[in-house]
């Protein structure tokens, strides 16, 4: 078993940080599992895209960001929001569509927003968030603020014109944009090699003169280390950076997906590289963590999620009278 473990042994990682990374990934995994359950119970409706298998990417990258950096994410963004520090209560209430949700229930699973943590939403148009991140970075650069804008997108977005326009524009204007490609090998159901002439996505950056790196997205420390390098480069005014995180989603694209486009064997093969169980094994092998520590993490996460579900259940529906609110700002200059 140990020979399959590809996680680079993080000798330099503090025990507490190792446990923290594990816990964050467990939080995401259990949240997503709870979501699937609540979806089948019809508590959560609409589209639901789960992040199982890709947790190391969100945890590795987001932990490397500063609190005043901005995040623009996709419709598969529960994990990013959670790791960013958004309240799991507000996330769960949003998934329920309740007004205590982080977007007052108006967004749902695909549109988690939070001004406090500068979380500029799950964007449900593939590639649609990239120009936003470019603009946020432009504002920072024009105001000489030392912040960066981190934009998550999938391998599917690389096929969009907006990806290329934004890579060019960010590079042209040397904007502090951190492009994080979560390459899970499928754009919905279309395999990477059926959609891209060059499947080595990090190479796309070269044409724009953008620094890039590809990293094992199933290894949280590898992702974190790469993200730290990228962020350092961006903050050093080198302009944007493209980090391609090679990962895999264990569950279907969304809840109604029969997964005709890939084999069970392929999924099982990738599950051997599960970022959570592999990290737990490594930490155990190195004596950093015991079974009781693991149980304690699971216990804490379960309590947190139970509380969030109870909160969402007890939350309220926005009154119908509010239907047309938030189309235009309620305060306009006279």
């Amino acid at each position, binding site marked *: 078993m140990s020979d399959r473990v590809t996680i680079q042994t993080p000798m330099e990682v503090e025990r507490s940080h190792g446990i923290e990374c594990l816990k964050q990934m467990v939080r995401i995994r259990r949240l997503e599992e709870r979501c699937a359950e609540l979806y089948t119970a019809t508590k959560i409706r609409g589209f639901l895209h789960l992040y199982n298998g890709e947790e190391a990417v969100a945890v590795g990258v987001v932990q490397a960001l500063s609190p005043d950096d*901005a995040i623009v994410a996709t419709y598969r963004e529960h994990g990013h929001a959670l790791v960013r520090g958004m309240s799991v209560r507000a996330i769960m209430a949003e998934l329920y569509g309740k*007004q205590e*949700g*982080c*977007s*007052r*229930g*108006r*967004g749902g699973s695909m*549109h988690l*927003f*939070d*001004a406090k943590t500068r979380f*500029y*939403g799950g*964007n449900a*148009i593939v590639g*649609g968030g*990239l*120009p*936003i*991140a*470019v*603009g*946020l*970075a*432009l*504002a*920072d650069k*024009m*105001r000489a603020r030392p912040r960066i*804008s981190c934009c998550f997108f999938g391998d599917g977005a690389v096929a969009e*014109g*907006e990806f290329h*326009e*934004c890579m*060019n*524009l960010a590079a*042209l204007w040397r904007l502090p944009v951190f492009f994080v490609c979560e390459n899970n090998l499928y754009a919905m159901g279309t395999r990477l090699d059926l959609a891209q002439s060059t499947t080595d996505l990090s190479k796309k950056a070269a044409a724009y003169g953008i620094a890039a790196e590809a990293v094992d997205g199933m290894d949280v420390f590898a992702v974190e280390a790469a993200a730290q390098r990228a962020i350092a480069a961006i903050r050093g005014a080198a302009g944007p950076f493209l980090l391609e995180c090679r990962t895999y989603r264990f569950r279907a694209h969304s809840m109604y997906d029969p997964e005709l486009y890939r084999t069970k064997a392929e999924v099982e093969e990738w599950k051997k590289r599960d970022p959570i169980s592999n990290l737990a094994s490594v930490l155990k092998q190195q004596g950093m963590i015991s079974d009781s520590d693991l149980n304690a993490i699971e216990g804490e996460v379960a309590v947190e999620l139970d509380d969030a579900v109870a909160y969402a259940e007890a939350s309220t529906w926005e009154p119908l009278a509010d239907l047309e*609110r*938030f*189309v*235009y*700002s*309620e*305060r*306009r*200059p006279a």
Partner: protein
Amino acid sequence: MSAATRQLTYRDAIREAIREAMQKDDRVFLMGEDVGRYGGCFAVSKGLLEEFGPDRIRDTPMSESAFVGAGIGAALGGMRPIVEIMTVNFSLLALDQIMNNAATFLHMSGGQFNVPLVIRMATGGGRQVAAQHSHSLEGWYAHIPGIRILAPATLEDARGMLAPALEDPDPVLIFEHAGLYNMKGQLPNDAGPVDIDRARVRRPGRDVTIITYGAMLWKALEAAESLEKRGIEAEVIDLRTLRPLDDATMLESVGRTHRALIADEGWRSGGISAEVSARIQEKAFYDLDAPVQRICGVEVPTPYPKHLEDASFPQVETIVAAVEAMVPAHV
């Protein structure tokens, strides 16, 4: 008189407004294709690069989606961007950003993220530039909740709409008719901001209300002159703001004249003229003495030859004829 006013063009008026906004607020910047070194496709921003520098008069690549989206991001990041799109036809390349992001962020975020963005673009035909540079799609944009649609027709509005648009917390799209840029006129020296909420009666009249906006306003006013000689007094309303529509002004007018004609360079089917007509019939049906009529662009991609292009847009004579067909001879 000459002491209080000066002569300038519609283009000059817009440039003055941009200059003033940039002088007053360092968060304001102009971004778009060829706005800097070229001086603007329609020379609106000519000279501004020298005055404000390339950081604030920002030439962009031909990437409408990216730079419009960047405008949204910059607005979210605290700036007050003015994004110029060369023509309305090109804006379709940025439609995703306008529709899916600018118009929805406030709502999707439950009120957390407003987008104080101004997008300017040229619209309209009449210059023999054929089927990909001539259309009037502002009516389409007026379909979208979450954005405000302005159509300045006069020097005063060209000069005065930008400042309140920049102060507006939400996205504002300003449609400048390309045929107006050279229009000369007098403007008071102290011309300042105007409201961006209300339609305006540009000419009072008793017998029929002609509702229009943009460059068509001038054809409507000319038609009204001609009608006056035939004993028909037409009231002319300039909508100015296509979204949200100012129902009160047009309903008040139709309540007096009992007849309404909408003159719109845009296509008829599903256009802003359809919306205006529907509202009048919904809210003023029992004030009507004749069916609401529309004079619209012929439903054809704009042709290149002048005679065909002229025939494809409403003209003074067609407005006059339409009014005459609505108003009793004895009036």
